[in-house]
């Protein structure tokens, strides 16, 4: 089965009002080329589920987001994501604010076909008080109350990986694959952009196969886009683009998102974008961060 698609074909399969999960973590291994393709489209009213970074910020700034399900939105080295803040401070988006681990439980519940997973996480906090959709339940086995973390059923997930084959075998060689396996399992359709398209034989050695975290049956589409995580990182292939993120966050103070989008996204193809940021070689040369 050949699951190769273009980014445009991925976006053409999405619909207004869908719940879309986005893999990665903050400024790390985000499917930014697919996000840019959404920004170029007329999609709207999306519910996003994300360990958020600029993916969330850009989609909020462009008015694509009806509701955000999140535990944080941050670029880590720039702690506060300016366009996410603007959207919240304008009251422009609905939110379901979660703990980081609750978000994981919600994805697992969806993956496992459970309506909810009980957890003590969230008890006693405003996570529960501010979100009427989070219900408490009594346990049949003890006298405590538990948060019934509901399944986060995703219509689609967007993920970026290091390499994939045309059948949807996906490999992540960075030190952490984050919750991407759960995003893949929680979604009806999972669209994966990859830095390298490889033959299946590339995974044959156990040292390679160990870095494949979900079965190809969970992958619906494969979009080869070398450098497609930029400006987020795709370790070990490249780090995040500090200068670019600074320009992006700086635009929130001067010019606004439309200035950024006009320069880098609107009317520009992905290859135009890569030329504007110095080309694939420059992306691949971005140093890995030291923590």
């Amino acid at each position, binding site marked *: 089965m050949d699951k190769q698609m273009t980014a445009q074909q991925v976006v053409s399969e999405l619909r207004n009002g869908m719940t879309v999960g986005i893999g990665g973590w903050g400024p790390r291994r985000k499917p930014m080329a697919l996000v840019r393709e959404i920004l170029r489209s007329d999609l709207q009213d999306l519910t996003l589920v994300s360990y958020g970074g600029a993916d969330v910020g850009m989609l909020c700034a462009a008015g694509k987001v009806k509701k955000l399900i999140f535990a944080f939105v941050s670029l880590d080295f720039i702690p506060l994501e300016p366009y996410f*803040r603007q959207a919240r401070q304008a009251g422009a988006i609905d939110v379901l604010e979660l*703990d980081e*681990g609750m978000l994981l439980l919600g994805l697992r519940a969806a993956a496992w076909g459970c309506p909810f997973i009980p957890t003590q996480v969230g*008890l006693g906090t405003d*996570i529960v008080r501010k979100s009427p959709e989070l219900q408490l339940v009594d346990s049949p086995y003890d006298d405590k109350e538990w948060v019934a973390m509901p399944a986060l059923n995703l219509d689609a997930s967007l993920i970026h990986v290091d390499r994939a084959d045309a059948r949807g075998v996906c490999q992540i060689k960075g*030190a952490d694959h984050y919750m991407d396996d759960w995003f893949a399992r929680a979604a009806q359709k999972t669209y994966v952009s990859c830095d390298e398209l490889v033959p299946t034989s590339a995974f044959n050695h156990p040292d390679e196969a160990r870095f494949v975290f979900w079965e190809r049956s969970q992958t619906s589409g494969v979009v080869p886009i070398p450098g497609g995580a930029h400006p987020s990182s795709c370790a070990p292939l490249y780090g995040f683009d500090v200068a670019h993120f600074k320009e992006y966050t700086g635009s929130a103070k001067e010019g606004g998102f439309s200035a950024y989008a006009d320069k880098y996204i609107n009317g520009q193809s992905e290859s135009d974008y890569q030329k504007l940021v110095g080309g694939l070689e420059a992306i691949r040369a971005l140093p890995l961060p030291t923590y």
Partner: protein
Amino acid sequence: MSNSSNYSLAELCIVACAEAFRGEGEVLATGIGVIPRIAASLAMKTFNPDLMMTDSEAWLLAEPNPLGPRDSDFQQQNETWMGYSRVFDNVWSGRRHAMLGPTQVDRFGQSNTSALGGTYEQPKVMMLGARGFPGNSISHPNSFFVPAHSSRVFIAGECDFVSSVGYNPDRLPKGHSLDDIDVRLIVTDLCVMDFKGPGHQARLVSLHPGISAEQVVDNTGFEVLIEGEIPITASPTPEQLAIIAQLDPHNSRAKQLKDNPPGDRRA
């Protein structure tokens, strides 16, 4: 207590923060931010070698990493993989103690990392979000480091958004006891506090050299129990200062507190 002027306030705070991890045994020590991270590392390098620590990315280390850029031949001492999904397995086991820097802390020891002012639907100032605070606070001990002690952080009322559970009876979940909650130590640029007063009231534990109890009271929005003679926060020993310098070779600690003040402000 020699060389009293030869250490910075950041170094004093590191040593005070490290105390949070004394006697904790074999738990994951998570220090978020430069001073808490060096503090957890110092504890692991000295009085609690059983602590566990990550590289702040995806590996559990047998030996803490020094901060900042390292030589190209540096090899970190990995013990096991510890990606984010596995961090939650550790958090929910309770075998962890985190030291974090929230934006607001109230008299119940509840903290806020998410939103200030306005309404929840439209906050005046949006920050990070709840992050892992809800799960941390219901699962394992937590301490706070507050680099600028003020009544804007230690507020008079309740937190605008309660990210982490504290000793508020009105919010106590059914079947739980306030004694299940463990808000351990609060270290600031002025003092050390805990919540071991009557009914889990905030209590002054020690004052940094040159700081008065009145300064703490004036800069704290809620009442802090001040009982008897308050000791002075212990100064770093020369051995501790040497280990701190090894853990932070680029002196990131000098940039953490405004104007990098000396540790002893009795002058």
